[in-house]
């Protein structure tokens, strides 16, 4: 390096920028060393600054702390809410403060007990899992024990199954379950009406020394009764157990009808009992053990040296493997934003942790296969709502398939029904036709009976009507004097009236008229005189009457001239009363109708042929 001049000012001007760069480079290379160096003075600097100009220090720290807090709230919203809730809850704040104090003392005691195997284990776990040491300590310090478990039908609040630790039975569990349901509904309703987060539901209810942890699925929810609030690990444990129950008994839960004597309820209760008796004790025993060890530092230090050497050896041996698994976890985190833990057990890659959806699972599966060429053993947990959704999707698929099969079958049946309907219609139509034919034949063959019935209705009070053959017989009306062919004038009116009614019925009825072949006027004489004379006399009487009747309006209206006939029968059928002839009665005429039999036969034939 050349200098224009060798005075102090020129040399400083040239060299000082170089020192800046070198110093910066050195500082960056030794970042940890730098922090160590600076940290010694940092507290002192902050203290001096606060004494000198506290407002200015606050302003400068505010610009750093505020965004940091905002970011923390954004990233760990639930944790922050959990942390702040006890402070906000006025009534319980005192107890919570006390609990936190005790918990912090516990943590501090553990931190002070620095040279313990647990600390190094915790540090290592923290490095590998990415969870802070404090958080792990918080988890360790939880002492919640689940004393009872309830599975409750969500809609009705009816208790489906229960399990308790010995001597921890709850009095009147069915009422407690209903009440817990009501409280849960009440709080959820309040949250819905008062909070922006419409989907949130109450999960923890505390009273006195009891805490209820509530986890909901589709149609049921589980309540765990604990002596304090459960930690993250315990919640996961309960959720995982509950998810298994929901998966296995989802149909039973959906159709639960209040009967708790079923095999399913017994089975669920047994599973819950087993769960209760396996989970909390180990944890408690383990925690108490570690606390006792904490009191004697020297044995721990000795143990630490031995275990530390072994542990380091083990770390070196497995270092490479752990590192590659750590990289794999990191990669999964980059891609899915999910913290999973990958472990090699029996030469298989087991993946633990929580994921939020099935998509995450498939992404993780692909990453692991791509990076290692191996298939993972799934030990991941999904939120219950995801399990629910998955179950619901499976159910939807099954329902769709069933619907499709059903609709195919329905279509086949529909075709058959259509075919049968067509056949039925044909049969019905044929039947109707036959029925009509039958009615027609019956009407036709029964025409005489019908005519007699009609005539009898009109002439029921008349003594001239003969109901057996439907004729009008004027035997009691003294129509003719001896040998006379003209009737007595006084009888004509009667004759006329009866004839008019008779013809109105026969020819005025469209069912009867087509089958009337003739209206016959029959003339008769008494038995005196010879047959030839009487025959002629009777014919003349019939003829005269016919002439008279033909002139009536009714005869013209029905064109009777074609069918009105006159016949003489001499003294046939005389009227005998007490073995003696009533000659005056025998001198009479009769009016009768004749049916056209040929027409009837033809009609029947036609009906059948049709």
């Amino acid at each position, binding site marked *: 390096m050349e200098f224009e001049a060798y005075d102090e000012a020129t040399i400083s001007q040239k060299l000082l920028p170089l020192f800046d760069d070198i110093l910066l480079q050195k500082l960056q290379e030794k970042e940890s060393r730098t922090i160590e160096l600076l940290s010694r003075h940092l507290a002192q600097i902050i203290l001096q600054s606060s004494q000198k100009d506290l407002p200015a220090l606050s302003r400068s720290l505010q610009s750093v702390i505020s965004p940091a807090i905002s970011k923390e709230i954004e990233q760990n919203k639930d944790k922050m809410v959990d942390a702040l809730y006890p402070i906000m809850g006025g009534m319980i704040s005192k107890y919570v403060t006390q609990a936190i104090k005790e918990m912090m003392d516990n943590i501090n005691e553990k931190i002070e007990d620095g040279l313990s195997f647990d600390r190094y284990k915790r540090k290592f776990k923290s490095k590998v899992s990415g969870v802070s040491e404090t958080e792990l300590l918080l988890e360790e310090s939880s002492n919640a024990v689940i004393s009872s478990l309830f599975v409750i*039908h*969500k*809609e*009705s*609040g*009816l*208790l489906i199954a229960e399990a308790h630790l010995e001597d921890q039975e709850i009095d*009147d569990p*069915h*009422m407690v379950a*209903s*009440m817990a349901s*009501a*409280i849960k*509904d*009440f709080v*959820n*309703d309040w949250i819905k009406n008062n909070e922006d987060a419409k989907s949130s539901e109450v999960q923890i209810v505390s009273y006195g020394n009891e805490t209820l942890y509530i986890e909901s699925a589709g149609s049921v929810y589980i309540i765990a009764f604990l002596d304090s609030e459960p930690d993250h690990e315990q919640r996961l444990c309960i959720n995982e157990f509950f998810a298994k129950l929901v998966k296995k008994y989802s149909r039973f839960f959906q159709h639960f*009808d*209040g*009967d*708790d*004597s079923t095999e399913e309820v017994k089975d669920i209760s047994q599973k819950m009992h087993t769960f209760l008796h396996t989970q909390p004790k180990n944890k408690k025993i383990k925690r108490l053990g570690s606390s006792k060890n904490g009191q004697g530092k020297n044995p721990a230090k000795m143990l630490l040296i031995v275990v530390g050497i072994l542990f380091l050896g083990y770390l070196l041996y497995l270092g490479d493997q752990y590192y590659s698994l750590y990289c794999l976890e990191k990669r999964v985190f980059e891609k899915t934003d999910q913290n999973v833990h990958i472990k090699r057990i029996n030469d298989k890659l087991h993946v633990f942790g929580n994921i939020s959806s099935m998509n995450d699972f498939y992404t993780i599966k692909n990453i692991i296969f791509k990076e290692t060429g191996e298939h993972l053993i799934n030990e991941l947990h999904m939120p219950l709502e995801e399990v629910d959704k998955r179950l619901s999707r499976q159910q939807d698929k099954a329902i769709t398939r069933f619907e499709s099969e059903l609709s195919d079958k329905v279509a086949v049946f529909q075709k058959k029904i259509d075919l049968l309907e067509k056949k039925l219609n044909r049969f019905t139509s044929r039947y109707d036709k036959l029925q009509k034919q039958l009615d027609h034949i019956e009407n036709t063959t029964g025409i005489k009976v019908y005519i007699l019935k009609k005539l009898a209705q009109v002439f029921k009070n008349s003594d001239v009507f003969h109901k057996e053959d439907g004729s009008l017989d004027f035997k009691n009306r003294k129509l003719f004097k001896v040998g006379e062919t003209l009737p007595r004038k006084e009888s004509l009116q009667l004759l006329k009236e009866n004839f008019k009614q008779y013809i109105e019925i026969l020819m005025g009825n469209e069912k009867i008229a087509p089958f009337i072949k003739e209206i016959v006027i029959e003339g008769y004489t008494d038995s005196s005189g010879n047959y030839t004379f009487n025959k002629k006399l009777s014919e003349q009487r019939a003829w005269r009457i016919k002439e008279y009747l033909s002139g009536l309006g009714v005869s013209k209206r029905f064109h009777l001239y074609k069918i009105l006939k006159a016949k003489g029968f001499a003294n046939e059928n005389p009227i005998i009363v007490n073995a003696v002839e009533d000659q005056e009665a025998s001198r009479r005429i009769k009016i009768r109708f004749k049916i056209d039999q040929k027409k009837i036969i033809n009609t029947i034939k036609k009906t059948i042929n049709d």
Partner: protein
Amino acid sequence: MIRKKILLIGDFNVGKTSLIRRYVDNTFDDRYLTTIGVKISKKKILLNDEECELLIWDLEGATPQKSIPKTYYGGASGAILVGDVSRFETIKNLDEHMEVFKQINPNGSYVIAYNKSDLLKLDQIKSLQNIENVFLTSAKNDINVEKMFIALAKEIFND
């Protein structure tokens, strides 16, 4: 044992809680009713030689200031709709209560209790008798209370 949830619904001060006190085996403290708007009680009954249990949700009468969560109505197999015979508007409102109940539980059974019937005159009592599913009850004089609960239970458990 089979258990069923039933509701006790009606306007404020029609005597629902008094009916419960007359009938049930066990109940939670009344202060729950004013706090969360429901009080749970239970009653074991014997129907056709079989033991059944009713879990009775006594719902507080809604007021303009305080509404009752609709989720309380869910999963109920039956309901007792209670009106006060001395206040006509409470009888008139029974239709509305029934509509809410039936909307949420279309297959649910129900009976109607015209409570405080001890205040009625004899001719009024006669005019209200013999109507299907209607009971003239008096928690005060213990009239028809058990009969009404049993009638509802029979309808629910025989279904």
